[in-house]
C-alpha cells in the first residue's frame, strides 16, 4: 500500500481554554477521500484549517507526504501550494472575474507565464462547463457556480490534497447537486480529499472513510456503510437520528 498523503497524529487544538480538537489521528491514502461529519461546532472547520496551517495546532503532528508540516521551521506558504481548500462561503474574490480568480495563484505564487495560466484555466473551466462564465464577475454567478469556480481555482494549482469545508451548506437546495457532482467527478479522477459535510447521501457516495466528530474527538470511524447503518456509539446514533428527523439522510 502506498504511503499516506496525509497523516495526523494525536492532534490537539484549543482556543484559549476551550479545547476544540483532541487526540485526532487518521490517515488519508492516495486517491482516497475521508469525510468528517458531526454537529455544528464539533470542530470540522478547525480541523481543516489546521491541516492548511491557517490555525496552529497545540500538540501532535501533521504529515503531508511524510513531511512534518507542523514543524516550526516549515514555511506555510510552501505547504499551502500543495493543498487546495474551499470554504463554506465568501470564497471568490468579488473584484476579479472568474478567470482572474482562477489564474491569481498560478501567476502570482507559482509564477506561471500568464498566457499559459489562462490556457490552463480556460481548459479547466471548459471541463466543468463554466467556460462561458470566464469573463463574468462572481456576483453574476449562482451560488453553485461560484462554489464550482472556487473548486476549479483550487485545482489550478494541481494540489496534492483537496480540503472541502461544507462547501454546499450555504447553498439553495436546488444548487447543491451541481457542486456535489463536480466533487464526485474529481473523486473518480483520483483526487485525494478531506471533506466536512452535512450531506449524508453524498458522504456515502464519495467517502472511503467516514469519521464522526463529536466535541473535537473522532468518536467513531469506518466505511460509510458501516458507520451509517450500524453505528456503535450512542452519540453517533443520536446524531444520525436527528439528521433523519431533519430529512437530511
Amino acid at each position: 500500500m502506498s504511503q499516506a498523503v496525509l497523516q495526523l497524529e494525536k492532534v490537539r487544538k484549543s482556543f484559549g481554554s476551550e479545547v476544540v480538537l483532541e487526540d485526532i489521528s487518521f490517515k488519508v491514502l492516495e486517491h482516497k477521500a475521508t469525510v468528517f461529519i458531526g454537529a455544528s461546532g464539533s470542530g470540522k472547520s478547525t480541523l481543516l484549517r489546521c491541516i492548511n496551517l491557517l490555525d496552529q495546532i497545540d500538540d501532535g503532528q501533521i504529515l503531508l507526504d511524510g513531511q512534518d508540516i507542523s514543524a516550526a521551521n516549515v514555511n506555510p506558504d510552501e505547504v499551502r501550494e500543495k493543498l487546495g481548500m474551499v470554504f463554506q462561503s465568501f470564497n471568490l474574490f468579488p473584484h476579479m472575474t472568474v478567470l482572474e480568480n482562477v489564474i491569481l495563484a498560478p501567476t502570482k505564487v507559482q509564477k506561471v507565464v500568464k498566457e499559459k495560466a489562462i490556457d490552463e484555466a480556460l481548459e479547466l473551466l471548459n471541463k466543468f462547463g463554466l467556460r462561458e462564465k470566464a469573463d463574468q464577475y462572481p456576483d453574476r454567478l449562482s451560488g453553485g457556480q461560484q462554489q464550482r469556480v472556487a473548486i476549479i481555482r483550487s485545482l489550478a494549482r494541481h494540489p496534492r490534497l483537496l480540503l472541502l469545508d461544507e462547501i454546499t451548506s450555504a447553498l439553495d437546495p436546488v444548487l447543491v447537486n451541481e457542486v456535489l457532482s463536480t466533487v464526485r467527478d474529481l473523486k473518480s479522477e483520483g483526487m485525494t480529499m478531506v471533506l466536512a459535510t452535512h450531506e449524508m447521501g453524498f458522504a456515502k457516495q464519495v467517502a472511503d472513510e467516514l469519521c464522526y466528530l463529536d466535541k473535537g474527538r473522532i468518536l467513531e470511524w469506518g466505511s460509510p456503510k458501516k458507520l451509517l447503518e450500524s453505528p456503535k456509539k450512542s452519540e453517533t446514533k443520536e446524531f444520525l437520528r436527528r439528521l433523519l428527523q431533519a430529512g437530511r439522510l
Partner: protein
Amino acid sequence: MAKKSGRSSNRAAPSSSSNFGGSWSPSEIELARRQARQARNKKSALIAALSSFLVLGTLGLVLVTSPGWETLRNTFFKWAYGFEILPKILLGFTTNATLTVIAGTSVALIGLGIALLRTSRSPALTPFRILATVYVDVFRGIPMLLVILLVGFGIPALQIKGLTNNVLVLGTLAVIITYSAYVSEVIRSGILTVHPSQRAAARSLGLSNFQTLRHVVLPQAIKRVTPPLLNDLVALIKDTGLVSILGVTDAVRAAQIQTAKTFNYTPYVMAAIIFLLVTIPLTRWTDRMLRNSYERENAVGQA
C-alpha cells in the same frame, strides 16, 4: 438524485406571469391603473411647481423690496468690481489647487501607510502601531486651524537651521498631518469591512501576506471607501483656504487683501463662487457614486 451535469441552470422557478412572445398588450386593469397613476403624478408635479413658485417668489420679493437691498447688493454682489479683481483671486486659487494636489497625494500615501500599520498584526510593529494610534487620535481631535498655527508659527519660532520658514510649505505640512489622520481611519475601516474569509481564501491559495493585501484586501477596501474619500477630498479643497491665516496668498487671502482696500465684500463672494464651482460638481459626483455603490452592495449577496 445524483447524475446531473454541472451545467444545470441557476434559477428554476419561472415566474407565473412571464410573457415570452411580443404579443402582450396591457389589460384593462393595467390601463386603468396607469391612467390613475398618470393623473396622480400630474397633480403632484403641479403642486410642487405651484408651492415652489409661491415660496421662492415671496422670499425673492421680500429680499428685493426690503429697505436694505440696495446696500446689500452693493456690499456683496457688485459684479463689475468682482470681475475686475477676479484674476487676482484666480491666481490665489492656483495656490489652493496646487496645495490640494500635493497634500492630497501625500495624504493618500501616508493615510494608506498608517491604515496598513494599524491593521497589521505583526508583533514587530507593535510600538509603531501604538504611535500611529496616538497620532490618529490626537490629530483627529484638534481643530485643523490650531495645527496650522502650531506648525506655521511654531516651527519658525524654534529657529532651527535648515528647517524651512516658508509658510506655504509649513501650511501644506499642517494640512497633510491633519488629513492623514482622517484618511487613515477611512481606509482602515475599509480594510476591516473585507470579510476575514477573503483573507483565508487568499492565504489558502498560497498567497503571501503582502500578496493577499495587494491583490485581495486593498482593491476591495479602496473600492468601498472611494465615496467617503471623495468627501474628504472636497473638504480638503476648501480647507486649503485655512492656510491663508499664515499669510499664504491663496484665494481667500487674495480676496481679503482686496476687501481691505475697498471695504467691499464682493471679493469674498467671488472666492466662494470659485470654490463652489469646483466642489459642487465633485459633491454631486460623489453622491452618485455613493448611491451606486450602495445599490450594488445591496444587490449582491443574493446569488
